[in-house]
């Protein structure tokens, strides 16, 4: 039964202040003006995104026309002959991010579980602060440490792996050969360091939404801590953790400066992870300043490609995380 109209509870939580006030006069106009200004500020986000696509497409068109489909299928990048094939850069971007993913995901989920399931409540804040500190260090500082300290120091270690693991059948294609300090692997390690705080903090939030009743029920049936995590916590938060990992991946794909310093700046497609490579963002950072004409256009077109990849990854990740949010709130 619906109540009489004058008794119906309004949908909003607060009364609409414009109802019952005069529409005319200065006050009403002030309200409309303020709403308008706020709306314009909100629309700015959409405007910037559209403008990025339009402006980069406008400047990158030349190179796409010159190269056609070989822009993404060709692996020869030679500005003097007007040959622009970006495949080696795309490959480097994907491979270094993939290495980072493999290294960072188990560690990040481990830390997230550590903070929520293991650490005593009063130590939780310090642990979270350490991870936040990791995120606060600028990427160029990781790059500086990577190129001057880590890459020279790790080369011998890589060579040892290449000489032992690299000789095993089936492993030589990935680990074998000569090892270089600046390589796909070094870029992957530095990226993993930068990815970890993002994946950790988002996974932590997701795991936090697991109802404690679910946990306590499992403990009550005599489950060990691991069994609680395995059967009560992880199934609930799997979707959200996947979203968190994809957001981390988006960050790794677009990371520029740290990768440019440690990846070795050599455009090549190889399965050997201890060899130097190149990435889209890194080649833009290194070459754009001295470029002009079609080469500059090609670098911008590559930027547009990177933009498209990261936007796709982010849209997918955000959709997953948002759906998870709704489920957690609705439950």
């Amino acid at each position, binding site marked *: 039964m619906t109540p009489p109209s004058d008794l119906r509870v309004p949908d909003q939580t607060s009364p609409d*202040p414009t109802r019952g006030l005069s529409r005319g006069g200065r006050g009403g106009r002030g309200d409309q003006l303020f709403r308008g200004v706020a709306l314009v500020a909100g629309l700015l*986000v959409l405007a910037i995104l559209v403008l990025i696509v339009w402006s980069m497409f406008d400047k990158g068109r030349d190179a796409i026309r010159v190269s056609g489909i070989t822009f993404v299928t060709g692996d020869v990048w030679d500005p003097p002959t007007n040959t622009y094939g970006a495949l080696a850069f795309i490959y480097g971007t994907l491979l270094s991010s993939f290495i980072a993913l493999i290294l960072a995901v188990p560690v990040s989920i481990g830390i997230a579980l550590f903070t929520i399931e293991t650490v005593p409540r009063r130590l939780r804040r310090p642990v979270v602060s350490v991870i936040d500190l*990791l995120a606060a260090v600028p990427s160029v500082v990781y790059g500086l440490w990577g190129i001057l300290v880590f890459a020279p120091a790790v080369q011998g270690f890589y060579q040892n792996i290449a000489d032992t693991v690299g000789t095993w059948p089936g492993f030589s294609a990935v680990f074998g050969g000569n090892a270089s300090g600046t390589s796909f692997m070094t870029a992957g390690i530095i990226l993993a360091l930068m990815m970890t705080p993002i994946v950790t903090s988002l996974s932590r939030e997701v795991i936090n939404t697991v109802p404690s009743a679910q946990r306590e029920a499992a403990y009550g049936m005599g489950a060990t801590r691991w069994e609680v995590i395995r059967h009560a916590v992880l199934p609930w938060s799997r979707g959200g953790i996947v979203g968190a990992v994809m957001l981390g991946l988006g960050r790794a794909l677009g990371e520029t400066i740290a990768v440019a310093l440690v990846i070795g700046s050599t455009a090549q497609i190889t399965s050997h992870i201890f060899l130097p490579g190149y990435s889209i963002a890194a080649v833009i950072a290194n070459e754009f300043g001295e470029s002009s004409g079609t080469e500059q256009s090609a670098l911008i077109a590559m930027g547009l490609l990177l933009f498209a990849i990261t936007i796709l990854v982010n849209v997918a990740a955000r959709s997953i995380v948002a759906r998870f949010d709704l489920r957690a709130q609705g439950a």
Partner: protein
Amino acid sequence: MLTPRREGDDVERLLSVTVSRGRRFRNRLAGIWMYASFVIVTVPLVIVIAYVVSKGIGVINGAWFTQKIFVLDTQKGGGMAPAIVGTLVITFWATMLSVPLGVLAAIYLHEYGKRGRLARLIRFMSDVMTGVPSIIMGLFIFIVFTVPLGAKGLIGFGGSLALACLMLPIVIRSSEEMLRLVPDDLRQASYALGNRKWRTIMTVVLPAALGGMVSGIMLAVARAAGETAPLLFTIGAARRINWNVFEGPNTALPLQIWNNSQSAFHPAQDRAWGAALTLVAIVFVLTLVARIISSRFSLKHD
């Protein structure tokens, strides 16, 4: 009988009695994995910071904060004043641009748009925008701002614009979170006094959310101050102090780290470490102050 001392002891002893060896072993293993994950990440953080401090502290003295940057990679000494000033003024203008716009957008999302279709779209796209690589923002500003201005285009303000694009979505999302924390009772009380909506927002809602907003904004500033890629093609190169972002090329600490770290000569590498220490100090102080403000703010609401 068990004599309970601590909760943990109790559980451990119960487990050893009731749980099979295999299950206990897997539980142990999972514990080691979680603990080791934390250690694995803490060690490189400590090492990086230790290197930055120990290598950077050597070049920092009085001249560091007052002198211009030497041209030659092989020349010892000189200062970093132009980059420190550049980082401060460029980040300042980026904040001046992104904070008012970001807070207004957050007000639209939470006070007007709420769960409407447009507001949901803007909210989603600003989340997506936080994932746009910083170098793309640099390219974008280069195309729409630096190139049209021609020879006068390489100025600090171009860098401010690029950083503002990066900060905008962060400011929007953190500000909206804070607006959400403001209790609806406050708005209703203000309406009951006859205030219009815009007055309610300006005089009641915003002051109530201010503490949390400031901390979110400072985290955004800290992130922007450490960005290199948006400045690469937009601010030019300078070796003298330039306080004016609207005229003449500029420089910044991240750019100095980027350039000097690729040099083969020790004096330049030392400058990179010094600039890194200065930058990390600035970023950590901003982060720390933001954390203090936000912990004060959340205490008030508990």
